[in-house]
C-alpha cells in the first residue's frame, strides 16, 4: 500500500509493436478522476479533427476507474473510448466482467492503443512486459472461443477483452466483450477490428494500491452494510433489469415496432416472471455482491440449449418488442448470438426495426431482403439477419452500417424511419413519453444513448434535483444538465449505474478520496464540477470534429407524430425541443449555438482547450 495510488498510462503502438508507460499527471487525476474523465482528456488532446474513425490514426482508450480491482463493491466496470465509426463524434462504451480489474492489477488506469497491426494480432501483458502477438488462429472465432483459447494458452489467471466476427468484419456497431459482458455502444469493437486487434489479454496477480487502506476498508464495510437492506440490491440480484419491461410498457415508455406506438400485444410473454422460468443462475462483475446478471437457458422447443447472460431490459426491448417479437426464447437466442458475434444489441435491433418498417411501408422489397418476410414479430427472420449482419452478407451488409447510413444509401425518404441521434440508435425509452429523456438523447455527445444523462426523475421518480413532470414540454433543461454532470462523475469513478443508488453519492465520494489519497474528491460540489468539466470537454471534442447545435436533435417522428396507443402517454409529442436545448445550454454554460463560453472554460479550468480549437470556434465563443 502506498500514499500515491494509481495514475499510469500504457501506450501501445500496433504499427511498431512498441509499448511505453507514462504517469498521469497529478492535476489530471484531481480534475478528471479516471475512467471517462481520463479517456476524454487524452483523446481530446491527441485526436485532431479529420481523423478517420477506422483509420490507424484513431486511438482506442481502454480505461479503468480508481476503484477498479479493490474490495469496494460494484466499481469494476471499464470504459472503451475512441472516435466513433457510427457517428464521427466521441464514442464510449461501458463494459463489465473482470477486464477493468485486471487492467488495474496490471498497474494501469489507461491503455491507449494506437496505429494498426499488419496482421490479426492481440496484445498480451504479463508481469510488467507487453507483446503484440499473432492472432491468426483466433480470427474468425466467436468471443467465447477466443477468451477460452487465450486462457488456455496463457493460463487461467488471464482475462481478456476481445471482438467477435462482427468487429473483424467492421460492422459499425461491433462490441468489445469480456466474459459475456459487452462494451457495446458506438462501435468500439469496430475500432479494434480496424486495427487488426482481436483481443487484449492480461495475465497478472491480483494486487491494487489503496492510498489510505484502513479508512478505505472501513468505508467498504459501510457500503456492504448499506447493500444488505437495500431493495434495489435484492431486486437486481433476483431479476436484473428484466423487471423493467412491464413497468415501462405500462408507462408508455416501451417503444414498439420502431417507435410507431407504445403498446405490444403479448408483452406479458416478455415480463420478468417468464424469464425467471428459465433462469439457471446469477453472474456478477469482479467485486460485486449484487450479481445482477441473469443466466438464462432455454430448456426445450426450437431454441433449446441457447444460453445467455441476459438478456437485459435493453435487449428484451431492442430484439423483442421493438420488432413486435414476444417469443422469449428467440430473444434469449438473439442475445446469445449478439454476445458471441460481438454485436451491440441496441443498434442491431434498431437497424433491423428500421428495415422492418421500410418493408411494412413498401420501401424495401422482398427482392432486397434475402427473401425474408420482414413482418413484425417474425423472429426467425430476425435471427437469420443477425447472422447476416455480423458476417456482412446480403442485406446484412447494408444494415451493418447502422440505420442512418443504410437510410442514406437507400434514399427515397428512408431516413425518416432511422431512429437515431447523430448516427447512434436510441435506447428503449420513448422520448415522447418522457421529454427530458428526449432532450438527453438529443444532447448526448455519443448520439442516442439512453444512459448518458438519463432522466430518472421522469423514468424512476428520482427527486434530485427536483421532481419532473415527464409530459411537460419545457422547464427541464437544467435537470438534464444535472444528470449529465452526475453520470459523468459516475463514469469517471466508474460506478455501476445499477448499484449507484445503493452506494449513494456521499459514500462514493469518500471511497474515491480514500483510494486515491486526493481529499478534495470527498466533496460533492467538487465532484459536480468534475462532472461538468468532463461533459464540457466531450462537447469540445465534438465541436472540434464538426458537430454543433444542428446535431442536437431527435428523429423527426418524435417532433411531428403524436405517440399512438401508449396508455397514459398516448398523444404526446416533443413540441419544444428548441426551448429545451436553450435551457440545457444555459445550465451548461454554453452559448445558444451550443459552444461553451469563455467564462465557462475559465471556470472549469478548460481555457487550455482554446489552443486545440479552430480560430472560427474560438471567435464564435
Amino acid at each position, binding site marked *: 500500500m502506498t500514499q500515491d495510488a494509481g495514475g499510469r498510462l500504457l501506450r501501445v503502438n500496433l504499427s511498431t509493436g512498441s509499448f511505453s508507460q507514462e504517469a498521469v499527471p497529478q492535476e489530471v487525476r484531481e480534475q478528471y478522476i479516471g475512467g471517462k474523465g481520463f479517456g476524454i482528456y487524452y483523446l481530446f488532446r491527441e485526436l485532431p479533427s479529420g481523423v478517420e474513425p477506422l483509420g490507424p490514426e484513431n486511438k482506442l482508450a481502454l480505461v479503468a476507474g480508481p476503484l477498479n480491482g479493490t474490495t469496494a463493491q460494484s466499481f469494476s466496470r471499464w470504459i472503451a473510448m475512441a472516435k466513433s465509426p457510427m457517428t464521427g463524434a466521441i464514442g464510449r462504451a461501458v463494459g463489465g466482467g473482470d477486464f477493468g480489474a485486471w487492467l488495474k492489477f496490471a498497474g494501469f488506469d489507461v491503455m491507449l492503443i494506437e496505429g494498426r497491426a499488419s496482421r490479426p494480432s492481440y496484445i498480451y501483458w504479463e508481469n510488467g512486459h507487453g507483446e503484440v502477438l499473432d492472432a491468426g488462429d483466433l480470427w474468425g472465432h466467436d468471443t467465447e472461443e477466443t477468451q477460452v483459447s487465450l486462457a488456455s494458452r496463457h493460463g487461467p489467471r488471464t482475462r481478456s477483452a476481445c471482438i467477435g466476427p462482427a468487429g473483424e468484419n467492421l460492422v459499425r456497431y461491433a462490441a468489445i466483450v469480456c466474459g459475456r459482458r459487452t462494451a457495446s455502444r458506438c462501435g468500439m469493437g469496430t475500432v479494434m477490428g480496424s486495427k487488426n486487434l482481436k483481443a487484449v489479454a492480461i495475465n497478472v496477480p491480483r494486487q491494487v494500491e489503496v492510498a489510505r487502506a484502513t479508512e478505505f476498508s472501513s468505508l467498504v464495510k459501510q457500503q456492504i452494510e448499506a447493500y444488505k437492506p437495500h*431493495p*434495489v440490491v435484492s*431486486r*437486481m440480484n433476483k431479476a436484473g*433489469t428484466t*423487471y*423493467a419491461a*412491464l*413497468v*415501462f410498457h*405500462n*408507462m*408508455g415508455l416501451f417503444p414498439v415496432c420502431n417507435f410507431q406506438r407504445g403498446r405490444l400485444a403479448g408483452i406479458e410473454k416478455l415480463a420478468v416472471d417468464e424469464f425467471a422460468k428459465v433462469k439457471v443462475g446469477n453472474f456478477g462483475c469482479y467485486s460485486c455482491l449484487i450479481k445482477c446478471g441473469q443466466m438464462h437457458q432455454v430448456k426445450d422447443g426450437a431454441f433449446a440449449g441457447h444460453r445467455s447472460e441476459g438478456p*437485459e*431490459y*435493453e*435487449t*428484451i*426491448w431492442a430484439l423483442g418488442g421493438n420488432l413486435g417479437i414476444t417469443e422469449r426464447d428467440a430473444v434469449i437466442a438473439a442475445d446469445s448470438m449478439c454476445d458471441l458475434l460481438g454485436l451491440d444489441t441496441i443498434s442491431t435491433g434498431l437497424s433491423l426495426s428500421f428495415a422492418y418498417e421500410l418493408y411494412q411501408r413498401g420501401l424495401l422489397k422482398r427482392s432486397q431482403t434475402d427473401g425474408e418476410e420482414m413482418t413484425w414479430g417474425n423472429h426467425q427472420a430476425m435471427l437469420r439477419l443477425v447472422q447476416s449482419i455480423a458476417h456482412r452478407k446480403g442485406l446484412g451488409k447494408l444494415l451493418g452500417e447502422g440505420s442512418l447510413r443504410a437510410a442514406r444509401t437507400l434514399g427515397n425518404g428512408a431516413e425518416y424511419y432511422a431512429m437515431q441521434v447523430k448516427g447512434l440508435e436510441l*435506447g*428503449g*425509452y420513448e422520448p415522447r413519453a418522457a421529454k427530458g429523456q428526449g432532450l438527453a438523447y438529443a444532447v448526448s455527445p455519443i448520439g442516442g444513448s*439512453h444512459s448518458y444523462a*438519463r432522466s430518472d426523475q421522469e*423514468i*424512476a*421518480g428520482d*427527486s434530485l434535483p427536483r*421532481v*419532473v*413532470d*415527464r*409530459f411537460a414540454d419545457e422547464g427541464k433543461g437544467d435537470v438534464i444538465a444535472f444528470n449529465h454532470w452526475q453520470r459523468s462523475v459516475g463514469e469517471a469513478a466508474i460506478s455501476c*449505474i*445499477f448499484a449507484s*443508488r445503493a452506494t449513494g453519492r456521499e459514500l462514493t465520494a469518500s471511497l474515491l478520496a480514500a483510494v486515491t489519497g486526493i481529499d478534495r474528491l470527498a466533496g460533492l460540489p467538487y465532484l459536480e464540477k468534475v462532472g461538468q468539466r468532463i461533459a464540457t470537454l466531450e462537447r469540445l471534442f465534438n465541436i472540434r470534429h464538426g458537430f454543433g447545435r444542428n446535431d442536437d436533435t431527435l428523429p423527426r417522428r418524435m417532433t411531428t407524430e403524436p405517440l399512438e396507443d401508449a*396508455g*397514459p*402517454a398516448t398523444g404526446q409529442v416533443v413540441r419544444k425541443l428548441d426551448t429545451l436545448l436553450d435551457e440545457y445550454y444555459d445550465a451548461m454554460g454554453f452559448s445558444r449555438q451550443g459552444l461553451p463560453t469563455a467564462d465557462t472554460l475559465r471556470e472549469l479550468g478548460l481555457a487550455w482547450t482554446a489552443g486545440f480549437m479552430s480560430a472560427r470556434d474560438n471567435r464564435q465563443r
Partner: protein
Amino acid sequence: MDVTVRVYGHLVDLMGTRQLTLSLPDGSALDALLSHVPTPEPLGHSDIVALHILVDGRDHRLTGGMQTPLHSGAVVDLIPPFQGG
C-alpha cells in the same frame, strides 16, 4: 367507484397478483386507496415513500400527493425502486 391498481416487484409476491380493482367511495383520494391495498401487513410510511406512484401515468407528487383525487376508471401504478437497462 372502481380504480385499477397495478403493482410490480415484491408487491406482486405480497399481493399474489399484478393487477386488481378496488372499489372506493366516490371522491376518494390516493391515501384512501393505499390503505385498502391488500398486503399481508399494511404498507407503512417508509414503504410508501419508497414507491414511485403514478396516477393515470403521472407522478403523484405533481398531482396533489397523497390527496390526489381519484376518479372511476383511474389507473394507479405502485412501482418499487428499480433500475432500467
